[in-house]
């Protein structure tokens, strides 16, 4: 157990360190979420201050999801190009324990965009950040980040199996913004979309963050968010060995 925790912790630290070392990615990471935030603020500027705050919280979680969905695909593809994916698979550590810290590290980097979006909204649009339950807010944010990382892990498992699955990450970026209610309330969507939204942890994480900021009851949302995150991880752990075996049989671990 201690060994597993250490492997996860060291893996997370290693990948956070690596993700923060690219100045090019760093600049994109700074600029990109600010564009999301600006678009969201202009969309909601005509509404009440509450609507603007709603948008700013939504835009802040958009950055976390963007960092995980698109970056997870790109990172796995980079591992494949650089030949490190084969080394990670050839290591005796269970591959789930190798991959999970990679996607959680990406979600952690996305946390920056959350902070920068709120600061950007405050400085340029004068959005007052008022949080009713700070403790629950501070619990909801990391829980959402980790749950998004766990969803990223489930996606990453498929990226390992299929060489071109990295494009799936890009494909999922915008639909998840919509159907998880980051910018638009879920009540705006047809009924058939709801079950899909409910199956996605970011939906519940977003609700927990908003409820804790607005003084509602975030705990049920928070529990569902964490529960779904754990479910994704369990599914990922169960299928990863099967997917890896298929990847070894079909020779898709490297590009050469």
């Amino acid at each position, binding site marked *: 157990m201690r060994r597993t925790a250490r492997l996860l912790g060291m893996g997370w630290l290693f990948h956070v360190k690596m993700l923060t070392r690219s100045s090019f990615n760093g600049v994109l990471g700074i600029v990109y979420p600010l564009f999301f935030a600006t678009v969201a603020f202009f969309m909601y500027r005509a509404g009440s201050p509450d609507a603007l705050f709603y948008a700013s919280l939504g835009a802040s979680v958009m950055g976390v999801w963007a960092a995980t969905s698109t970056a997870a695909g790109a990172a796995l593809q980079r591992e494949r190009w*650089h030949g490190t994916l084969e080394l990670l698979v*050839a*290591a005796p*550590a269970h591959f789930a324990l190798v991959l999970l810290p990679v996607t959680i590290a990406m979600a952690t980097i996305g946390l920056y965009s959350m902070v920068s979006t709120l600061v950007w909204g405050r400085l340029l649009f004068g959005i007052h950040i008022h949080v009713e339950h700070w403790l629950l807010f501070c619990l909801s944010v990391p829980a959402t980040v980790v749950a998004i990382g766990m969803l990223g892990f489930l996606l990453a498992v498929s990226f390992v199996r299929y060489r071109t699955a990295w494009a799936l990450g890009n494909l999922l970026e915008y639909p998840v913004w919509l159907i998880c209610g980051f910018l638009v309330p879920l009540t705006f969507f047809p009924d058939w979309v709801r079950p899909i939204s409910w199956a996605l942890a970011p939906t519940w994480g977003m609700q927990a963050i908003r409820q804790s900021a607005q003084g509602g009851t975030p705990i049920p949302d928070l529990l569902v968010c964490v529960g779904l995150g754990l479910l994704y991880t369990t599914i990922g752990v169960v299928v990863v060995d099967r997917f890896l075996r298929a990847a070894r049989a079909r020779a898709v671990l490297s590009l050469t």
Partner: protein
Amino acid sequence: MGAIQARDLVRTYKTSTGIFRRRGVEVQAVRGVSFEVADGELFGLLGPNGAGKTTTIKMLITLLIPTSGSASVLGYDVVKDAHEVRKRIGYVFGGDRGLYERLSALDNLRYFAELYAVPPAEQKRRIAELLDLVGLAGREKERVEGYSRGMRQRLHIARGLLHDPPVVFLDEPTIGVDPVGARELRRTIAGLTEAGKTVLLTTHYMFEADDLCDRMAVIAKGEIVAEGTPRDLKAIVADRTVIEIETFGVDEDAVERVRQADGVTSVSIEERDQAQVLHVQSPAGTELTQRLLALLGTTRIGRVAVREPTLEDAYVALVGRDA
């Protein structure tokens, strides 16, 4: 039982071509490869590019599942007991890939030490020992992206030895490394067997194989065409003579005329700066020099020499025969 055993290994790759009418294509990269490497032996797998060396090694280190046949490392099956195999092997490949370039050598080694379950209390000592062994002590905090190819290669070796594996796979470890760096790497590789490790080395540098290997197998077009000690392989061409003809700007037609000449068993061309050196093999005692010079016509000729065959000539004869 040997430390490494391969029995009738076959590996087929499936690809497809076309956009609308996709057509499946099967390429057989390895066709029934069998060999055995004894405990503590340094065994070489020699062959030209695309011969199936890397595919064979990837099956042995559990990265590829054989299409048919079986293999084991230290008695563990590479498909059924992949986890047990992984704990006991180190894998080092050549070239620039396989490292996290944005981070330091120390970061890389610490991360892989975790993946290979090196106990935390031992990591510091083990990493320091390996940095010393590969001559990177003092440079470990620099980012890998600033390393030369030789330094990267040495870091690869340190990474592959972190968990002190009894069996080490080296896939073209000196490729692209400058002569001095390559010589140092060869010294490090030789030290591995002195430390009791079993090593499987793939290379297409004959002098390297001759220098390091206890035994070797030559692989061409996915099949083993010869196996034995360097002396055994040299014996294949012991009854031949090699004529070296230095030419400048020789054309394909002239080479073809030489190749078709009576008494010529094989011809290989080596590029040396501005010159192309033809290595012409023929049965010992055959006097061909004047005839070959005549066949080269107006080609500018430099030095001409007759010499005894080397391991490289044996390799050319074997690979050329099956190519």
